[in-house]
């Protein structure tokens, strides 16, 4: 592991794009020998904001939090499985908080060299409200960021790994 990338972090949020990003992270980890990390953030900041805004009631906040925690387990297990099939270990972690803050903290605390995220949705609006969480994280982390595109090509690369 003498290359420029020693620790990769893939941000997983359950979208198809983030799963493709996880596949690409596996491919890149195999190619570079870099350690592979996966992070899911249970977005409790958004839940708190929705409660404060009174869009959610308390029971609803708790229900959605349980849903997100179950999502975290499901998607991180999927990433573990993707890595295991290609003979890799992955440090898969779920944390709670504000997405961009938690990604930034994880990158700093674990000396991540490269953050990998899924393709960003095309946003037609110039309103800041529509920048998604991954995009906010991309702007604030200290390491380099790779945005994974072309699901078919990534699948071919992943599938071709022995």
């Amino acid at each position, binding site marked *: 592991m003498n290359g420029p990338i020693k620790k990769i972090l893939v941000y997983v949020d359950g979208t198809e794009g983030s799963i493709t990003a996880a596949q690409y992270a596996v491919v890149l980890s195999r190619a570079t020998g870099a350690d592979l990390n996966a992070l899911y953030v249970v977005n409790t900041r958004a839940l708190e904001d929705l409660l404060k805004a009174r869009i959610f009631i308390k029971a609803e906040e708790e229900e959605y939090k349980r849903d997100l925690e179950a999502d975290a387990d499901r998607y991180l297990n999927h990433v573990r499985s993707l890595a295991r099939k290609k003979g890799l270990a992955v440090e898969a972690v779920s944390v709670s908080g504000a997405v961009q803050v938690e990604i930034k903290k994880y990158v700093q605390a674990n000396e991540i060299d490269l953050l990998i995220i899924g393709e960003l949705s095309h946003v037609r609006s110039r309103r800041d409200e*529509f920048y998604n969480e991954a995009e906010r994280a991309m702007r604030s982390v200290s390491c380099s960021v790779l945005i994974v595109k072309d699901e078919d090509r990534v699948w071919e690369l992943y599938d071709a790994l022995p």
Partner: protein
Amino acid sequence: MALVDLIRPEVVKVPLVSATKPEVIRELVECLRDAGQISDVETVYDALMKRESMGSTGLEQGIAVPHAKTTAVNALTVALGISPKGIEFQAIDGNPSKLFFMLLAPPDQSGPHIEALADIARITKSQAFCRTVIGSTSAGEVVELFGED
């Protein structure tokens, strides 16, 4: 998919003709049916009314965000309606609601549902923008406002 990409002319109703909470929820649900977004009107209506029975989603400043999880949709689904006169929706501040963001999500898509609701929560903080949207006279104008502001 970003919330703004879901706000298309066919899911925007301007002006709403309803005068009560049940009527406006049904009017927006039927708007989604007419747009080909849903087929089971009653299941969606019941899910939204059940949520309203737990507490009104009428916020301050004339904004309401009726929402529900339902198996009657297989992706995040949005309808938007404007009632210039306002509709009694048991809002927090007691004022009639004029701008309605209706959001539906399948039970297994809590993440995108929460992110879209959070987008709406951020939008509602901009009173000037909401006033401009409420002043719209056509669906096209609303879509343009969200896309080009």
